[in-house]
């Protein structure tokens, strides 16, 4: 996180990738504990990653990273419980043995983010799609969409913020 802070995008991508298995395991645990199907775990993971990204300015470089990450993950877990309507509360320990190792999971395609991307304004949708799904760099996306790099950056950023907002309004 501190390296990313200094503008190292590769370090940042590596960090988020390495956090994902732990987030996935935590999301499963949280959904199971609430008596919900863990098929929605990947949506929770993606929403949490978005929150980590959009709230990265709240991480104080001198403070430990763990509590910050845990608080964000917990907040998003609670959102997911609200969204699905929390039915029962079961102790986490009952499920501990049957939990799959999150790191062994394939890279899952999820419904929520894809649906939310579709409802973004056109230029934001195009920027998010080009960079996320097609794997284009900012410059490549700019050339393909006939936009300036700056405009692609802005559209990408607004698109990502818009995705987080759509998750949020889903909760209501």
């Amino acid at each position: 996180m501190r390296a990313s802070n200094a503008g190292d995008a590769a370090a940042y991508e590596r960090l988020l990738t390495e956090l994902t298995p732990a987030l996935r395991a935590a999301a499963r645990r949280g959904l199971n504990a609430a008596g919900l199907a863990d098929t929605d775990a990947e949506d929770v993971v993606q929403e949490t990653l978005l929150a980590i990204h959009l709230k990265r300015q709240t991480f104080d470089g001198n403070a430990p990273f763990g509590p910050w990450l845990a608080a964000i993950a917990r907040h998003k877990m609670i959102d997911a419980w609200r969204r699905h309507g929390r039915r029962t509360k079961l102790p986490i320990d009952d499920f501990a043995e049957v939990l799959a190792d999150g790191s062994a999971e394939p890279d899952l395609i999820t419904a929520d983010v894809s649906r939310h991307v579709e409802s973004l304004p056109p230029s934001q949708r195009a920027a998010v799609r080009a960079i996320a799904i097609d794997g284009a760099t900012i410059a490549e996306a700019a050339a393909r969409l006939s936009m300036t790099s700056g405009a692609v950056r802005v559209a990408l950023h607004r698109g990502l913020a818009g995705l987080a907002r759509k998750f949020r309004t889903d909760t209501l």
Partner: protein
Amino acid sequence: MKTSDLIRALAADCAPWPKPLRQIFNAALLPAILMAFGLYLVVLGPRPDLAAHLADPRFAFKFLLALLLLGLVGDLVLRIGQPGVPTRASALRLWLVPLLLGGAILVELFVLPPHLWLPRLIGSNALLCLVSIPSLSLGPLIAIFFSLRRGAPEHPASAGAAAGLFAAAIGAVLYATHCPDDSPLFVAAWYTLAIALVAGIGALAGGRLLRW
């Protein structure tokens, strides 16, 4: 969209890395406090006999209590937007303010003859107090909300209430130097009402604007 796709998009949006929340907070709050102070100077101004009252125990208590509230809520507001930073102890310390005020009321009731209780409670400027404190706190309230929206408060409504309390404390510190009513009875009734009003507005707004 696959999770690795999303991560690629997030990494592409990594730079420019935003300023830390603390800096955002300071940058928003300083102009807001200056605006509140400017409004105070133009519309209210210090009471003419302020210098003579600086050592008066009732005035000193009123002013220092408002400053104490400002300091205590300030500590809470700085913590509240940052996930994983504990807030409980900071929030519990706020009880010091009503406790001190309660003690001051007891002393006031003891030293004042009963026929003065009601006049001191009503004071001469209750309505101005109710209008001034919320008006002075409006700019700071907007500034705090602006910065807290960049933050990630775990409980949006409580964070909004804390933001309202902090803004109202700024208003109260300023108004305390204008208001000629120094009795703890007056402070307990009208300052409390005015501050609660702003905190309530903050809580309502926070529940809507500070969700993330």
